[in-house]
């Protein structure tokens, strides 16, 4: 498994998926023109994780904003994480979703995702 790093831009988030520390982080803003292309390497990385016994992973979200198209891709990522967590492999997932505690729109978005996936899911107002 390679360490996946995508540097953040004005319209795409930072991706830092580190097999060494077993942390997968997504931070910043997500409003790319082409969400499918942007998130393709992220989904491929998760496909590889599903095939590789690697232990207990944390998915850490520090998103400030995402558009509706990204919202669909984030759901795809969370469902992939659920597959990894619930299949027969030894890999487990914990999701930690940090948000600005005044931002009730983001809190609600995180709650809605947590209702959809069967993975330990903490929502943390900071």
């Amino acid at each position, binding site marked *: 498994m390679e360490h996946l790093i995508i540097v953040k831009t*004005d319209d795409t988030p930072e991706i830092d998926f580190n097999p060494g520390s077993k942390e997968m982080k997504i931070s910043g803003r997500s409003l790319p023109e082409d969400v499918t292309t942007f998130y393709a390497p992220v989904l491929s990385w998760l496909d590889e994780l599903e095939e590789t016994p690697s232990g207990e992973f944390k998915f850490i979200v520090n998103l400030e904003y995402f*558009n509706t198209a990204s*919202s669909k891709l984030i759901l795809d990522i969370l469902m992939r994480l659920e597959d990894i967590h619930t299949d027969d492999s030894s890999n487990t997932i914990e999701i930690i979703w940090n948000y600005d505690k005044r931002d009730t729109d983001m809190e609600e978005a995180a709650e809605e995702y947590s209702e959809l996936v069967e993975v330990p899911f903490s929502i943390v107002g900071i």
Partner: protein
Amino acid sequence: MAPMETPLKQIHSIMNDENAVLIYSGEFNQEIVKSMLNYTEGKLESSGIDDLVRKKIFNVMVEQLQNITKHQYTDDDKQIVQPCFVLIEQENFYNLVTGNPIHIDTIQMVTDRINQVNSLNADELKDLYKQARLNSRISDVGGAGLGFIDVARKTENKLDFGFYDIDSANYKYFTLKTQINKIIA
């Protein structure tokens, strides 16, 4: 719904009478959208706006601007009326107005979608969004088909819209006006 004035007339009156934060008419692409967002954020920040209101404006503006970027048409390669965006500050709220040509074949679909969104309360919108997202597929132009629902949820106000005749047999000019309250409940 009271008919809005024709878009160009409306923009003209906005420029004269209202406190416009940003007025743009021309080509829309991702680079231009990013510039408009950067400019607006800077201008709003220096106005001392509540962070949460600024964030809401950013959210709704992205959806409205990207909606235009993803649905730009030319009529038989002849450039028709340019799309536009206007952000104006009123006493108690901000208005975000977009205008763009849309093909007459899509008017009914757009009308039905907005009327559906306008008929729902907050809980119903939440359920619709969750269900629509589960069933959504990213379209050829990169949309998820969730924009109107998201904008209605974030603004907590009804969407105001209209279609105006332009010099084209196949297109009308679609305007969408959203409202973001300055005081968030």
